[in-house]
C-alpha cells in the first residue's frame, strides 16, 4: 500500500518538476522513487498480508514479487526514456509522470482483492498509455496509434465492466474472497450469468496482453507509438495483466481440471502462438516484427497460465524477467539506429557488424536469448514454462509451443543473419556515449546472470 502511495506522489512531483523547469531532475527523481518503492516492498516482504481498505487490496507475497519485477523493469524503461527523448522535448517530465502513474495502476492491478479494484487498476494502468501512445504529436502514426489504442482499449473496458456487473449479478458481491467461497461451495447454484461474466472479464484481460483474437490493435499501436511506450507495453503492462489474470483464475480455482476455462486459455494460447509467429514471418519492419513476436510471447506465457499451479507465477515472472531485458535493449537499439540512420527495416540491418561491433554483439545476444539458447535468460524462462506444462500433463500444448518457437527462431535468425553480412554500403558508425555503452553491457550481463542463476531468482520469490 505504501508503495502505491509513494509512486503516486512521485508521479505528481514529476509533473511539478516540469512546471518549475527542472527537467534534468526527472530521471533522478523517478529512479530514486522506484528504488525506494522496491525497498519499501522488500521490508514489508514477510510482514502481515492483511488486506487494506476494506479488503480492496491484498498485498501478499504474490503481489509483492509482481510489483518488484514491474518496478525493476520500469527502471530499465526510465533509462531508455532518457536515451530515447534525449532531453530535447519540452514535456519530458510529464512523460515520466505518466509512466509512473501507469506503474501505480499496475501495482494496484496485481494486488486487487475486489473486482472494483480490478477495474480501477486496469484503467489507471491504461489511460496514461493512451496519452503516451499519442505523445509524438507531430507524427501522424503516433496519433493514429493513440486513437486506435484508446478506442480499442475503451472497448475492452466495456467488456470488463460488463463482466464485473454480471459476476456481481450472479454473486451479489465484488469481493474476491466471498465470490470464491460461493464458487467453491457449490458451483451448481451459480447462475449462468457468472460464467458469462468471467468470460467477459477474461476477454478484457486477453485484450490487454494482445492475445488472439484480440490482437489486432497491437502491431499498429506498437509501430506507431514512441518506442519507449512500445517497450513498456510489451513488458510492464503484460506482467501486470498476467498478474491480474493469474490472481483472478487462481482465486476462483477455475483452472483446476480440464474444464472449459482450461480449454479457453489453451486455445487462445495455441492460436496466439501460431498467429503471432506465422504473421511475423511476413514482416519486414524491425519494430513490427518485435510487435508480432510480443504477441507470440504472450501466447507462450498463456501455456503456463493454462497449466496453473501454486508455483506458476514464479515461472511466469522469471520468464518475464528474462524476456524484458532483451526487449528493452532491442527497442533501445532499434530507436538509436532509426534516429541516427533512418533505417527501420530488417534488410537495412545488413552489414551492421562492420562498423558497430558492440551494438551487433548486444543485438545478437538478445536475439539468442529470445530464441532460448542456453545458458541465456530466455532458455530457463522457456524451460520453466515448459516443465510446468509437463507437470500439469499438457504435453500437446507443450509440443505446439515447441514447434512455434522454431518458427519464432526463424524470425530472430533473419535479423541475426542480416547483421553479420558483408556489404559495401554498410550502416555507418553509430555514435553512442559511454553511458549508453554501459547500458548495453549491463543488459548483456543481466541476460547472462539471470540465465546462470535461475535458482536464485526463483528462491527470492518464495
Amino acid at each position, binding site marked *: 500500500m505504501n508503495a502505491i502511495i509513494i509512486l503516486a506522489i512521485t508521479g505528481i512531483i514529476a509533473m511539478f518538476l516540469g512546471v518549475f523547469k527542472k527537467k534534468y531532475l526527472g530521471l533522478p527523481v523517478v529512479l530514486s522513487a522506484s528504488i525506494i518503492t522496491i525497498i519499501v516492498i522488500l521490508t514489508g516482504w514477510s510482514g502481515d498480508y492483511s488486506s487494506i481498505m476494506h479488503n480492496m487490496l491484498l498485498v501478499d507475497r504474490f503481489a509483492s514479487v509482481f510489483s518488484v519485477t514491474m518496478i525493476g523493469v520500469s527502471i530499465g524503461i526510465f533509462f531508455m526514456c532518457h536515451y530515447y527523448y534525449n532531453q530535447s522535448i519540452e514535456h519530458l517530465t510529464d512523460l515520466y509522470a505518466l509512466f509512473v502513474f501507469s506503474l501505480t495502476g499496475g501495482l494496484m492491478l496485481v494486488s486487487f482483492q475486489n473486482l472494483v479494484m480490478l477495474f480501477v487498476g486496469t484503467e489507471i494502468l491504461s489511460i496514461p498509455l493512451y496519452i503516451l501512445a499519442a505523445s509524438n504529436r507531430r507524427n501522424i502514426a503516433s496519433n493514429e496509434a493513440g486513437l486506435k489504442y484508446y478506442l480499442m482499449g475503451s472497448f475492452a473496458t466495456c467488456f470488463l465492466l460488463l463482466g464485473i456487473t454480471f459476476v456481481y449479478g450472479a454473486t451479489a458481491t465484488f469481493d474476491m474472497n466471498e465470490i470464491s467461497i460461493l464458487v467453491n461451495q457449490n458451483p451448481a447454484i451459480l447462475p449462468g450469468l457468472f460464467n458469462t461474466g468471467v468470460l467477459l472479464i477474461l476477454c478484457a484481460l486477453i485484450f490487454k496482453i494482445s492475445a488472439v483474437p484480440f490482437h489486432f490493435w497491437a502491431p499498429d499501436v506498437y509501430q506507431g507509438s514512441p518506442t519507449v511506450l512500445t517497450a513498456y507495453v510489451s513488458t510492464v503492462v503484460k506482467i501486470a495483466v498476467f498478474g491480474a489474470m493469474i490472481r483472478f483464475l487462481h482465486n476462483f480455482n477455475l483452472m483446476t481440471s480440464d474444464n472449459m476455462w482450461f480449454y479457453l486459455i489453451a486455445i487462445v494460447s495455441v492460436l496466439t502462438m501460431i498467429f503471432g509467429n506465422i504473421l511475423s514471418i511476413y514482416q519486414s519492419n524491425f519494430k513490427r516484427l518485435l510487435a508480432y513476436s510480443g504477441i507470440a510471447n504472450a501466447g507462450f506465457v498463456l501455456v503456463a497460465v493454462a497449466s496453473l499451479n501454486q508455483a506458476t507465477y514464479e515461472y511466469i515472472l522469471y520468464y518475464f524477467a528474462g524476456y524484458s531485458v532483451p526487449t528493452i535493449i532491442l527497442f533501445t537499439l532499434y530507436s538509436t539506429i532509426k534516429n541516427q540512420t533512418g533505417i527501420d527495416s530488417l534488410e537495412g540491418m545488413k552489414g551492421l557488424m562492420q562498423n558497430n561491433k558492440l551494438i551487433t554483439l548486444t543485438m545478437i545476444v538478445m536475439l539468442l536469448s529470445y530464441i532460448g539458447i542456453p545458458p541465456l535468460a530466455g532458455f530457463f524462462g522457456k524451460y520453466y514454462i515448459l516443465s510446468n506444462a509437463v507437470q500439469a500433463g499438457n504435453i500437446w500444448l507443450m509440443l505446439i509451443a515447441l514447434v512455434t518457437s522454431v518458427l519464432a527462431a526463424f524470425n530472430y535468425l*533473419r535479423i541475426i543473419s542480416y547483421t553479420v553480412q558483408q556489404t559495401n554500403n554498410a550502416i555507418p558508425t553509430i555514435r553512442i556515449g559511454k553511458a549508453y555503452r554501459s547500458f548495453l553491457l549491463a543488459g548483456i550481463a543481466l541476460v547472462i546472470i539471470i540465465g546462470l542463476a535461475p535458482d536464485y531468482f526463483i528462491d527470492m520469490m518464495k
Partner: protein
Amino acid sequence: MLTLFIILFPFVSAAIILLSPSEYTKKLAVASGLGTIGLTLVAMGNYQSTQADKIWELNLPWIKSLGISFHVGMDGISLVMLMLSSFVTLMAVLTSLNDKFAKLPLYYALLLIMQGAMNGVFVSLDLFIYYIFWELALIPAYFLILMWGDGETRMTTIKFFLYTLMGSLFMLLGIIWLGNMGPSAGYDINTIYDLVIGKDRQLYIFMMFMFAYAIKIPIFPFHTWQPDTYTKAPVAVTIMLSGIMLKMAIYSIIRWVIPVVPLAVEVYGKYFILAAVVGILYASMIALVQKDLKRLFAYASIAHVGLITAGILTVTKTGVQGGILQMLAHGVNVVGLFYITQILRRYKGTNEITAFGGIRITAPVFAGFYMVIMFGSIALHLTNGFPGEFMLLNALYQTYPWMSLVAASGVILGAVYMLVSYQKVMSGEIPDGDGGVPALNNIDKLVFIPVILMILAAGLFPQWIMNISDGSVDKIINLYQTEVNTFLNK
C-alpha cells in the same frame, strides 16, 4: 578437475585469441589445438580400461531446486571421442592456415568455442548440462558458416539452424520429461539410469531423442539440410561438422538412449536401422551422380554415418565397438577428403569434377595422399576404415541379415563413386589450357601426413583403440541387457 580443463581450455584460448593482436592468432590457435591434445593424452594415461570407472569426475551443484549439477567425468568412450575431437580440431585449425579470411581472430575463436562445447557434450554426466553444451555447439557453427561460407549462405544457415533446433527442442521435451519422472526432479546420469520407465513412455522418449539425433547425424530422411550446409561451409567447418559434431549425436545414442530407454531400442530400434540402411543406399546412389566433389563427399558422409548408426542400434558389443572405431576413422578421413576439395578449389576456384584431370602427372605426391585417404574411406584392408566397417557389417548380419545385405551393397557403391571420382580428377589427360596443380606446400603436408599416419595406425592397430572403450561399452551393454531381460522374464 582435468575434465573441467578439457572443457574450458578451448574457451579460454578463444578468449585469449580475441583479445590478442591478430598477428598471433594463428600461432595461438595451433597452440590451443596442441594443448587439448596434450590434456587428452594426460587423461588417457590415467585411465585403466579394465575398471571402466569414470575418471576425473567433478560434481558441483548448480541449480538445486531442479536437481541440476555440473557433473562431468570421462570414461573410455568419452576419451576416444575427446581424442577424435582434439585431433580433428587441430586439423581444422591447420587446414585454414592457408585461407585469407577476414576477421581471422573471430574465426578461430568460434572454431575453438565450438570445440569446447562439443568436448562438454562428450564429458557431461548430467543430462541438463549435456543439453546446454549440445545447444551451445550450434551457435558458433551457425556463425562460422554464415560469415565465412561460400556464396549465399543466409538461407542455408537458417535451414541448418532451424532443422537442428527443431530436433533439439524435441530432445529438450524428452529431457524435461525424464527429469520430472522420478520422485524429485533430477538430471544426474545415475538418477536417469536408475529410472524405471514404462514401455509406452520409453517409446515416446526414444522418439524425442532420436528425432534430434536423426537430424544431427543425419539419418535418411532427415538429411536434407546436410549437403547444402557441408558444401557451403568453409572447409574447416565442414571438417568440424562431419568430424565431430555428428559424432556428438552418435555418442549420445550410446550414452543417453541405449541405457535409458532399452526396451524402446529393443523394439523400435530396427526402424531406425532400416532408415539408416536405406539412407546408405540412397546417399550412395546420389553420390554416384554428383558433379561437385565436395557435395559427393557430403553424401558419402551420410552413407558412412548411416552404417555407424545402424551398427550401434543393434546394441551388440561388436556393433558398438565397431561404431566407435568407425567414428574415429570417419573423423580422420573427412579431414583428408574435405581438405582435398579445398586444395582443388584453391587452384581452380571450383570443385566441379569435370574441371580436373591428370593431376597425378603434375602432383604425384598429392595424388598419392588422395589415394591413401580414399582407401581409408572405402575401407580397404590395413586402413582405418576396414576394421570398423567389418565389425559393423558383422553385427548387422548377426541381428538383421537381410539389412546387412543392403548395407553391404551400399558399401560397394561407396567404392564405386570414390574410385570413379578419383579417376576423373587424378588420372587421364590434363585439360587444355591448364598448367596442372602445383606441388603441395608445407601446410598441406602438415595436414596430410598426420591424417595418413592415423589412417595407417588405426588400420594396423585397431585393438589399441578398442581396449580404451572396451570396459565402458561392456557396462552400457550390460545395463541394456539386464533391463531387457527383466522385462522379457516378466
